[in-house]
Each structure stands twice: as C-alpha cells, then as structure tokens.
C-alpha cells in the first residue's frame, strides 16, 4: 500500500508542476515564433484562391470542450474568407456548434462591420444525423434547411438564390473535434460531389485525418491543434489568441520531456536496485 501512496504523491507533484509551468508563460509571455507547416499553407491557399463572391460553407462541428484549440482557427479562417469577399454559410453538425459559430462571427464582424446578414453571411443552424444530413445537402439544401436560424425561408435569402446543393459552393470548411466532422464531410461531400473540403481539428484527431491530405486532395489542407491556429494567424498577419498561447504550449512540452527523462532515470535506478 505504501508504494501506492507514494505514487499518489508523485502524481500530485507532477500535476502541480505542470499547472505552474503552464501558468507562468501566460503571465510572462516569451514571444517565440512558429514556423508554418505545409498543411496549414494548403488550407490558406484554398481560401486565398477562391474567387470573389463565391459562396462557401463553414461548418461548426465542435463544442466548448475544445474551444481553446478550434475557436482561434474558426476566427482566423472566417476573417480570411471575409477579407476575400466570400459569402459564408455557417452551419453546425453539433448542437453546441451553433453557439461557437455565434462567438466566432461576433469576433470576425468586429473587423468587418459592413458585412450584411443574408447578403454576405447566413447562419443556418444545427442539423441532426451527421453524414445523412450532408448526404441530403448534396441532393438539396433547402430540403435540409427549410429556413435559417431566424426563421427566414431559404428561398428568401439573397445569397442563397443560386445555391441549390453542395455542388454550388466553392469549398467547405469544417471545424471539427470528432464525429460527425471533417471525415464525414470528406466522405459525403468531397468524394461523391467533388466540392473541396478543408478544415481545422484538434491535435488528437489530426494524425488520423492526415491520410486524406494526399495527391487527390480528399482534404485540402488541415489545421491541427493550437500550433496550426497560430500558424494561420501568422499567415493572415493577425496576432490572435493562438499565437499568445504558443509559449505556454512550448514550455509544457518541454516539461513533459523532462518528466520522461526523470521517469527513465528512476526506472534505471529501480532496476539496478532489484538486480542487487
């Protein structure tokens, strides 16, 4: 039992040190710079090269639990899309995504106050059933979204006049932290319809989605985690929340490496002792 209590104490020490190590750089920022990876660049290029006044879809498929990672991406990508004069359809495959979308738009509209609802952007709200909903959007969007969040009929929204199915949008950007999310968009929109899909996801999901960023561009670039968010902010010359938080991130990573080293030293001593 004593070994157990011992490991309990050890565990609590680790927790405490980690807490302090993350808090300090938040209070005293260091200002390290990040390098831009190819995946982020690719996603940026898609938005950058999509022509003026194309209609695009931003799908908010996450909830507050992953807010820190994904919200900065959402804000940066929205801002970028607005700056390219694209018309944005917002929607959500997660019910909590609706609130996340509202927050992101409030942020982006601060920079672009003349964007008009219904003309430059629209919020269609949440839809249940994930991949089935996307599949149905491929056949008919008004069928899936008879009206927007405010109750305005789909047909009466100016920017949606020419958008009948997902084929008519220039790209889909899914900000997702699980299922349904990017994978479902690739499966039900990109592969059958050919509409480009890009997006941002948590660092947990990123490795599993990277195989889709291939020569066929099943996925047109991908933002994975806070680092990618800060890279995107760099690309659009924005000093956003992600950039500021990268210092804490770097310190925490280093600390975990230190933990690994200590753990190994301890294991080495233990094995020596048991040999004797």
């Amino acid at each position, binding site marked *: 039992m004593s*070994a*157990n209590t011992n*490991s*309990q104490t050890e*565990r609590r020490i680790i927790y405490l040190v980690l807490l302090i190590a993350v808090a300090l750089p938040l209070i005293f920022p260091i200002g390290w710079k990040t390098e831009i990876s190819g995946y982020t660049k690719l996603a940026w290029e898609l938005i950058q090269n999509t022509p003026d006044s194309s209609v695009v879809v931003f799908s908010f498929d996450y909830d507050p639990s992953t807010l820190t990672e994904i919200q900065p991406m959402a804000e940066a990508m929205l801002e970028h899309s607005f700056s390219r004069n694209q018309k944005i359809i917002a929607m959500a495959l997660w019910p909590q995504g609706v609130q996340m979308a509202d927050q992101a738009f409030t942020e982006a509209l601060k920079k672009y106050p003349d964007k008009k609802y219904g003309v430059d952007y629209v919020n269609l709200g949440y839809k249940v059933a994930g991949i089935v909903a996307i599949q149905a959007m491929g056949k008919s969007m008004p069928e899936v979204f008879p009206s927007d969040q405010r109750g305005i009929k789909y047909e009466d929204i100016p920017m949606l006049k020419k958008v*009948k*199915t997902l*084929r008519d949008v220039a790209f889909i950007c899914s900000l997702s932290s*699980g299922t349904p999310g990017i994978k479902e968009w690739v499966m039900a929109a990109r592969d059958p319809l*050919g509409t480009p899909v890009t997006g941002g996801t948590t660092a*947990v*999901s990123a*490795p*599993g989605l990277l195989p889709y960023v291939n020569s*066929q561009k099943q996925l047109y670039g991908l933002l994975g985690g806070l680092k990618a968010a800060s890279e995107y902010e760099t690309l659009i010359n924005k000093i956003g929340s992600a950039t500021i938080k990268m210092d804490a991130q770097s310190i925490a990573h280093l600390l975990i490496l230190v933990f690994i080293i200590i753990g190994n030293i301890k294991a080495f001593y233990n094995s020596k002792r048991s040999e004797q």
Partner: protein
Amino acid sequence: MKKILLVLLMGLLLSFLFAKSSFFWVEDVPWDDGKALIIKANVPADTVYLQKALEDGSWQTLYAGKGINLEYTDSELNPDLEYRYRLLVPRPTFGDSISFKAIAKPIEQWFYLHKLSYLLILLAVSFAIVYYVQKARKGKDYYIRRINGLDSIDESIGRATEKGKPILFVPGIGDLDDIQTISSLTILSHLAHKAAEYDTEIIVPCRFSMVLSASREVVKEAYIKAGKPDAYNQDRIFYLTDDQFGYVAGIDGIMVREQPAANFFLGSFYAESLILAETGFSTGAIQTAGTAQASQLPFFVVSCDYTLIGEELFAASAYLSRDPQQLGSLKGHDFGKLLVILLIVAGVIAEMSNWHWFKAFFEGAQ
C-alpha cells in the same frame, strides 16, 4: 433527280441548323441523374451572349463573354422538360445580332460510369464475405493466426486466482449497435468461462441497459457451460450510468476500492481511455486493452501490458468464439486485404510506367 437532290440538300442543311450546328449545340451530361446539360459553342467572336428560355417566354442570360470553345454546364434541371437555349452574336457594324438556337432534354442514365471501379471493388469484397460466411456455416473451419494480446487471458486469470482478487471487464462505452461492443462481449464469454473454471470473480460495469442485459446473458451462459451455475453472481454485472465521464468515474472507484488483479478494457473507447488505463496502472493490475478507435490506441499501447490493435479485436473475438459467421466474415476481409495489396502494387508499377489510366480508373475521375 435534281429536285430530289435539292430537297435532300435542303433537308440536310435544315437538320444541321436545328439538330447540331457546329457553332452552337447542346449535349446531355453523360452518366448522371438527368439534371444537367452542357451547352457548347465555338464562334470566333469576342462577345457572345448565351441565353436560356424561361417559362414566361423571356430570355435569361447565362453567360456573356468570348465565344471560342465555350462550354457551359446548366444544372438543376428537370429531366421531364425540354430546354431551349440561344446564342446571340452581336454584329456592331450592322447594329443587329445573329442568333443560333438549340433545344435539348436532359437524359437520366441508369449508371454512374465513373463509379465503375468503386462498384467492382465493393462487389468483390461483398461476394467474398458472403461466400466465406456461407462456407463457414456449412462447417468449414478457417484458420486464424494466434493473436498476441490473447496470451494475457491465462496469465491474468492465473494471477487473480493466486491473489484471490477479482477480474474487471469493461465492455467499452459503445452501445450494442457498435460491432466493437459485440466483439467485446464474445471475448467476455470466453473469459467468464475460464474464470468460472478457476473460481475467480468477474466484475462487469455497463454503460447502457442493452449492454447490461447482453452481458448478463453471456456470463450466465458461460458459467452454466463450465458446470458452475451456482457460482454465477448477477450483482457483479451492473449498470453504472449513461454519462461518459460518470461511467469512467464509477469504474475508477471500483478499481481503487476492489483492487482487481487484472483489468480488461475491450470495445469502443474515447477520451476516457487514458483515465482508465492510468488509474488501473496505479492499482498494479495486469491490463489488457483492445479497441478499433485509432485515436485512442496510443494510450492503451503506452499504459497497458497487452493491446489488441484495431481489427485484432474483431479477429480475437472470432478466434475465441469460432462462430462461423464471424470466422467467415473475417476470411472475407482478408480476401479484401490481399486485393488491396495487389492493387496498390499494380498501381505503383503502373504509375512508374506512366500508365496513368490505371490510377485514373480507381480515382473515378468524371
């Protein structure tokens, strides 16, 4: 004779004008659901106007611009209707314009041709699975290689018996419609049988009521088969809560209080994988985990003694149960894997030899 020739010539000219002029014509989009037409024009003019007849008789301009090699796809059409288009080529010197007309009806086809490769692969794999399942049902026994993670079962039960401590089995957080949960229950059946033989207690906390009733059934059956129906204790297989984190917190409590000698985490797991494996480790149990959830595998691999990776979970369940349905299906999947390997090799060779049609066929380019 001359008259006939003249009439023929006239007819030819007319049919040219109406059916397919070489300046302006409409084609059906092949292999689709009959909702689109391609309008093509080739007129050496800098400005042309492409217009479509609306129901009220007016003309809607679809395109304005250069007339050379013009291709315009009009989509969202109704396959029952005929559509009329015209091309206006303005003649500024005369102050008027020449107009070409074309009429067409979109046609619905019976197959998406670009999906041929996709259909073929799906059919091949499906037939293989059905074929092997049928054969297995008729009594053919298929070989499955030994799976490393399964070695832990005997070791765990041995350890638990020695220490007089129970075994903890967690069937994952998926409901019964998840095949991972079903595989997990098959393994539970085998484990319960062994546990009954050695008189070791087995604890099964469940997240869903459907999983609970299935687990009870499975364990009870195993105890009866082992000839110890009296040793079966229904209260050790219980429902905790539907909530993900509540469920995990409950299991954590069990691990700390009961100190099981061995933990099995088999089924579908999400973010809680790490919490379970970490707490289990701190109690010193031998841990075996298995999931097809790729994002959670690293944590199990790192903190458990044995891990069934991805499809190994399904294979383990087929291996232990010898259920012909599962065995046959697995054999069918294996056929699919061989096909995949062959196709990849063939594809790489084709690409290196510049035969790009091969890859294009599988990409299903339209």
